[in-house]
């Protein structure tokens, strides 16, 4: 019965509505293209507004979160020093002034170079606390903490008692940097005779031959087979061995300059000298290296009818 009444009610529907429905042409229910167009336009308007607001906001507000300041500091800084760093941000230009500097030495590095030049360096880590004042609004400040790591190598004066290698006897040390200079100052002779002298076992004076003629030059080679730096003295000594194997008390000496005065471990240097030794005798050479002495193997000088003394030979007699 209810269905019939509904059906009858629908029969009395307004003809205008019936005609409207009959003439209705196909259409999208949600008008999607227009809806999308309106949506895109609304999004663009919102984005543009956001960009404009952010631009205005940036111009009016100083940068609170300022990027960390990286400063390269050279030289020795103390807590009393100040450093000015210019920090550029996208918003404005600010001036950063280091108001306090904390210096914390973290390690001490000692190194040495060849030729006897010794330098000492200090590796220092500094923590620099800076206060940033905005150039736009001075009332707003922010604190920036940056860590500056710097390695400074400075030369120091070599002084007695420092951890520098002890220079060889008979040499002088200049006042700046511990530079060793070879001198012609006569060294102290070895104590006692050749046989009583203590020689280094790890380094030897090497000769190019074992038998020489009286006028023949001798080439002496030193290879630093030790782990020490050798400071070569510029006088070479020799001693004579008798036929029964004993060494004479006297020492002969002559200046002999090697190609270098400082011999690092593994390095080699040579020197050639005509010593004008006495014929028909057996000799050995000795050289002062720092606090110690090194020697050569024995060598023989052949007999000769003539005796030459072209080179200046200083013959000394053992004081003992």
């Amino acid at each position, binding site marked *: 019965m*209810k269905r019939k009444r*509904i059906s009858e009610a*629908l029969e009395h*529907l307004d*003809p205008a509505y019936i*005609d409207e*429905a*009959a003439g209705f042409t*196909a259409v999208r229910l949600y008008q999607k293209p227009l809806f999308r167009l309106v949506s895109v336009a609304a999004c663009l308007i919102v984005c543009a507004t956001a960009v404009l607001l952010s631009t205005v906001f940036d111009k009016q507000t100083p940068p609170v979160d300022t990027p960390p300041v990286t400063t390269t500091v050279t030289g020795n800084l103390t807590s009393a020093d100040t450093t000015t760093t210019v920090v550029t941000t996208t918003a404005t230009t600010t001036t950063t002034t280091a108001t306090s500097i904390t210096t914390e030495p973290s390690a001490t590095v000692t190194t040495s170079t060849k030729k006897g030049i010794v330098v000492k360096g200090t590796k220092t880590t500094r923590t620099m606390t800076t206060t940033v004042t905005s150039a736009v609004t001075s009332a707003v400040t922010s604190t920036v903490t940056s860590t500056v790591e710097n390695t400074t190598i400075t030369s120091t004066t070599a002084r007695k008692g420092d951890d520098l290698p002890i220079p060889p006897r008979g040499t002088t040390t200049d006042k700046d940097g511990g530079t060793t200079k070879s001198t012609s100052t006569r060294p102290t002779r070895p104590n006692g005779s050749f046989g009583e002298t203590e020689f280094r076992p790890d380094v030897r004076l090497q000769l190019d031959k074992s038998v020489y003629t009286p006028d023949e030059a001798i080439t002496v080679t030193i290879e630093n087979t030790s782990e020490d730096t050798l400071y070569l003295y510029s006088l070479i000594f020799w001693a004579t061995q008798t036929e029964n194997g004993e060494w004479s008390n006297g020492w002969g000496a002559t200046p002999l300059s090697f190609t270098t005065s400082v011999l690092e471990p593994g390095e080699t240097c040579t020197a050639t000298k005509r010593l004008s030794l006495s014929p028909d005798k057996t000799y050995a050479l000795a050289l002062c290296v720092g606090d110690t002495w090194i020697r050569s193997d024995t060598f023989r000088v052949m007999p000769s009818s003539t005796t030459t003394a072209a080179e200046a030979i200083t013959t000394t007699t053992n004081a003992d």
Partner: protein
Amino acid sequence: MKDDQIVRLFFERSEQAIAELSRAYGALCKNVALHILGNAQDAEECVNDAYLGVWNSIPPHSPNPLRSYVCRIVRNLAIKKYHANTALKRNSVYDVALDELENCFPSSASVEDEFSAAEAARAINAFLGTLSRENRVLFVRRYWYADSIDELAALFHASNHTITVRLSRIRAKLNDYLVQEGVFL
């Protein structure tokens, strides 16, 4: 041919009037009948009976708009035939549409409170006046022309689900409106 020209042919008792009417609204009338009856042969007979009805009623009537006038005749004839066939089976689109509407019409507690079909029609017409054009067309196409969900989806370029959901919301609004107005069937 325009409606007034067709009506003039009817007034002139021209046999061409039926041909022009069929050319203009034949498909629409056949659809209305088919949706209600669910049978092509019955629908064809119904439409032919409607043409005869129009021939007999014009003159003296001079309908404007002609389209809704013809469709109403077709629909009335189709519903008469539908009621005659109801005892046998209920499987047309119109049955489904009536089932949907039946639930949204509030029932009366007593016979005295029942509204007549004419009073209910006035309430429905008033309700349709509150709807948007799309929703109104959707309602009329579904419950007067008995269009199927597929046909409405094609008409509105929307999915079946969208059409179903929108019709459901319209029915809910109709139910609220009828309760508010105190219309019971």
